[in-house]
């Protein structure tokens, strides 16, 4: 029995909350909190100091196949003994209006998106570690580490916590490495439902504003009383609690509605709101509503060690088609902070995965992890119709120097560090990352 059926059975025959609330005589007012006296600071907009005000990062968890994506198996690769001949069964398509960009079968549903926004591909990033967690942390943060006990912050977390954005950023799906940014943590939700319900805790109760205000005033007084009786050390702990709680009103007052309605379901081909793909329109709604200018959205299903092509193409197609819809929405939605611009003009889209797949198949007709990685960058200021980096006919990353491929060496390799640094420089020029991301930056991805 599906969980959906199970819940319907359990609900049947019981009073609904609405009936109960009707008994209680609660009115139909929506959620809102009063401006409460402990509001510490007014809601602040993120100040990046650049034309890019927002970043939407998609992380395809598991390691995607660049042969089906940004680095299709064509030309000499096709006749290579290293790449499985199965790739020749699948289409490669030119992105309309972008002479340099070709995509494999997996990304074909997104060609319209690539056509409509400045787009660059990065291929042949050298990924030394191919263990999922370590590689994910490296790709997220731009800092390579073999330590499982020390965590370095995602570059997006670093950008976000150095702006005035509150909440700093939004992570939809899997947790994002935070490192020392954990004191300014993201708003994290595993599903769109969870996010919406967190932001509207009293919505189901239709509780009057006055009652919410009374409750929160009492809560504040209780917390103050408790803190006053505690030791100095404990008071420090409670101060953290108090600081984060004091800003809740900013979120409640905005009355964010990130519910996925039927129109969105139809546009994004979603049947149920608990589907993983529902995270994509949720990310769009978060940007549209101004909840946070920085959003990370993770999507699973790319670690196809078995039946690679059947599973991987379907998964990647699912993402690509919805990326198309998302870009169309960004193109037609004004930026909440600047109505003269569309979100597509102020948002940088970054698509990454921790590494890519082996060019050959294993015994289970699947693929395994490979020491190369690739990505997609889209948005204003991106070097359009550009591919940076490449792989050779053996699928190994090549070096990159002066705009062309060269022998791989420590001086010429493209690393996630370089990409992270370039993005940080572009989005938040004032943030100095030379101490941990080094000096080399993949600036070519931007004009």
């Amino acid at each position, binding site marked *: *029995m599906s*969980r959906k059926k*199970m*819940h319907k059975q*359990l*609900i049947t025959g*019981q*009073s*609904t*909350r609405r009936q*109960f609330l009707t008994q*209680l*005589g*609660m009115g139909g007012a929506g959620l809102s909190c009063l401006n409460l006296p402990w509001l510490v600071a007014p809601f602040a907009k993120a100040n990046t100091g650049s034309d890019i005000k927002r970043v939407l990062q998609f992380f395809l968890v598991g390691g995607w196949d660049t042969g089906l994506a940004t680095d299709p198996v064509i030309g000499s690769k096709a006749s290579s003994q290293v790449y499985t001949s199965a790739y020749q069964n699948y289409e490669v398509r030119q992105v309309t209006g972008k002479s340099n960009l070709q995509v494999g079968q997996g990304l074909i549903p997104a060609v319209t998106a690539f056509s409509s926004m400045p787009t660059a591909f990065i291929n042949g990033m050298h990924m030394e570690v191919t263990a999922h*967690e370590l590689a994910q942390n490296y790709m997220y943060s731009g800092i390579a580490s073999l330590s499982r006990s020390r*965590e370095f912050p995602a570059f997006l977390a670093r950008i976000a916590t150095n702006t005035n954005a509150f909440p700093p950023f939004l992570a939809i799906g*899997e*947790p994002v490495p*935070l490192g020392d940014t*954990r*004191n300014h*943590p993201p*708003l*994290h939700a*595993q*599903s769109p*439902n*969870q996010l919406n*319900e*967190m932001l509207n*805790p*009293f919505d189901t*109760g239709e509780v009057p504003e*006055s*009652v919410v205000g*009374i*409750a929160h*005033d*009492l*809560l504040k*007084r*209780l*917390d103050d*009383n*408790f803190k006053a*009786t*505690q*030791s100095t050390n*404990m008071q*420090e*702990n*409670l101060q*953290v*609690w*108090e600081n*984060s709680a004091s*800003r*809740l009103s900013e*979120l409640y007052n905005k009355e964010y509605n990130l519910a996925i309605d039927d129109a969105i379901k139809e546009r994004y081909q979603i049947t149920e709101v*608990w589907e993983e793909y529902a995270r994509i329109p949720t990310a769009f709604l978060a940007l549209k509503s101004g909840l946070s200018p920085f959003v990370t959205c993770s999507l699973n299903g790319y670690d196809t060690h078995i039946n690679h092509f059947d599973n991987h193409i379907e998964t990647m197609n699912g993402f690509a088609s919805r990326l198309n819809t998302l870009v169309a929405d960004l193109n037609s939605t004004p930026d909440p902070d600047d109505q003269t611009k569309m979100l597509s003009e102020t948002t940088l889209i970054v698509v990454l995965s921790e590494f890519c797949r082996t060019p050959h198949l294993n015994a289970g007709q699947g693929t395994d992890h490979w020491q190369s990685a690739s990505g997609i960058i889209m948005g204003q200021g991106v070097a359009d119709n550009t591919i940076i980096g490449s792989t050779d006919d053996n699928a190994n990353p090549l070096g990159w120097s002066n705009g062309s491929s060269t022998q791989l060496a420590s001086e010429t390799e493209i690393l996630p560090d370089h990409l992270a640094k370039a993005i940080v420089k572009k989005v938040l020029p004032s943030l100095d990352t030379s101490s941990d991301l080094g000096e080399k930056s993949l600036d070519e991805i931007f004009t």
Partner: protein
Amino acid sequence: MAIKFRELSILFVLIISTGLSSCSFDKDDDSDDETAADSDQPSNTRNQSQSPENTESIIGGSGDRGLLLAPEQFSDMVEKSLEIRLGWTDHHGRFFDLVKQQLAVPLGGVDFLTSSTRNRLPKVQTHLIARRLAWEIAQVIVWREVDPNHPEPKQIFEHCDIVEDRPFRTSDANHSSDVQEQIRAGELRWETQLIEFYWRLLSRPPSQQEITMMKEAFLQVTGEYDGWNPPGWAVILYTILASSEFWYL
């Protein structure tokens, strides 16, 4: 597969067996409504030597710095203190705890990827989820006491009538002395119930200041509902469940 939180409030499984509903304190078996009505002081079923005024010695915190409740601990505490389980049971009879299954990661709890780097610092979503949970639980607790058609008998409002008993309002002085006496008696029962909740949830009695604060808030809330009392209790339970004292060990 995420489940609508809204629906889950209806799915809370109530612990039927009193054997499972043991509280972490000893109850005074002599405490009853008549005893409370005859006494000038609220019936404090705890150690009588601990004055409600002396909250500094009562209010605790684990160690010097305190620890934020883990999601599992929150779930366990709610289960034991309010006799309510948060979750659902599948057709195989397996119980899935809501907090552990759905909310552990955002609450800084254990998840399979980061169990070694468990972060208990309160986050924005800690409060968002905590308040959401607190409100849901408060609603359900009050609902099951009030709903005449509820399949389970009254669970934890043992000391007062959730609908009738309330603190004395200023305007009650206009009533006859008999009526005022009845209201006062109900107020004492109300206070006893409040003290019960404090023991259940915070392992201490409320201070006189807290009792006063709670009374004021209760009357303000019920005033918004034309004197209907249950919403007042929902707010009281909500504030205790969302308070830092509850969430810190």
